[in-house]
């Protein structure tokens, strides 16, 4: 059984849960795998820590909680501080590199990939698509879900009329991720 455990962490208002939800939706509904999602919110509507735990597997999932993720996606320094030590030593860290600084908390052996997702989102026209940039980055770096499935999941999840900007955000993150993992010629 191939099972991948993911944690997405950040602040309320960054679209952390939607990011996790889209990854799970792409895997389960459009890539026909199994996935689960656990969401955790802080007490305030905005600015408090929140996170999502996503499990993707080829077989039904018996236990949905993620303690030591294979992949950690962080969009805030607090999320990094809290969750980086829990990443598996062979894990992958995907982080917003203008908000988060990678330090000794990252387990030795883990690989880190950074992206200026907030800046990219602002350049595209709306800061609030930063989570979709991160979804694209996740897809580009990990290839855990297919680009086609993620595109369909994004289209299926965002409000009507915002699809184009969200798709551009997705592709921006995806292409940036593909370039980072590309083998040098």
């Amino acid at each position, binding site marked *: 059984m191939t099972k991948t455990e993911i944690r997405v962490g950040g602040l309320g208002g960054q679209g952390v849960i939607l990011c996790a939800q889209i990854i799970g939706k792409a895997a389960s509904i459009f890539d026909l795998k199994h996935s689960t999602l656990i969401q955790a919110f802080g007490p305030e*509507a905005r600015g408090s820590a929140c996170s999502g735990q996503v499990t993707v597997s080829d077989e039904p999932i018996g236990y949905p909680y993620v303690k030591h993720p294979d992949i950690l996606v962080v969009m805030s320094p607090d999320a990094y501080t809290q969750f980086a030590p829990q990443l598996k030593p062979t894990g992958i860290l995907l982080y917003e590199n203008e908000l988060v600084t990678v330090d000794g908390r990252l387990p030795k052996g883990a690989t880190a990939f950074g992206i200026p997702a907030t800046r990219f989102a602002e350049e595209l026209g709306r800061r609030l698509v930063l989570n979709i940039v991160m979804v694209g980055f996740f897809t580009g770096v990990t290839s855990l879900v297919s680009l086609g499935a993620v595109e369909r999941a994004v289209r299926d999840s965002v409000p009507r009329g915002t699809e184009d900007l969200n798709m551009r955000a997705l592709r921006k993150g995806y292409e940036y991720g593909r370039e980072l993992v590309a083998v040098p010629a």
Partner: protein
Amino acid sequence: MTLEGFPESVTLRDGTSVLFRPMQPDDGPALLEFFRSLPEQDRLFLREDVTREEVVDRFVRHLDYDAVLPLIAEYEGRVVGDGTLHRDRHGWAAHVGEIRVVVAPEFQRRGLGTAIARLLVRHATSLGLDKLVAEVVDNQVGAKRAFGKLGFYPEAVLKGHVKDIHGTRRDLVILANDVSQIWETMEAMVSDFSPAQEG
């Protein structure tokens, strides 16, 4: 010069297939032919004398899709419609876009104007604009209806602001479409706030 999502083919309600694409530097002659074919009445409501070669030449030579997106509708290799999305890149109205549409007489009342405007609204939304405006003369019933279908509503009337070819003064109606609500929906979606915590 390319733009994501274009060229795009759209079938009008009578089955005619029209190709939409951003204006290119070599569109000058076809565009000039299109503008010169417009009745004087239609041309009067345009802001510049587009029958002059140097005016059209300036359009095609200074293309900057970020400031003005000119969208051309093409049928059997000739231009049959032109729409533009204008926006300020800075200042107090940087969140507002203005849409202008002009359609060849034989393509009026066939849904071409609505199709052009719809593509421009879609593009404006994807740029993150909050509000769109369009100007129509009070007797341009078809244009008002077409914009109305896309969510535009009359927001202001400038009395006697334009004169038609007979010298009759007419009201200029400023139509507006506040598209910020779709971004409010998106904002609510990324709030990371548990529905169970509401209330």
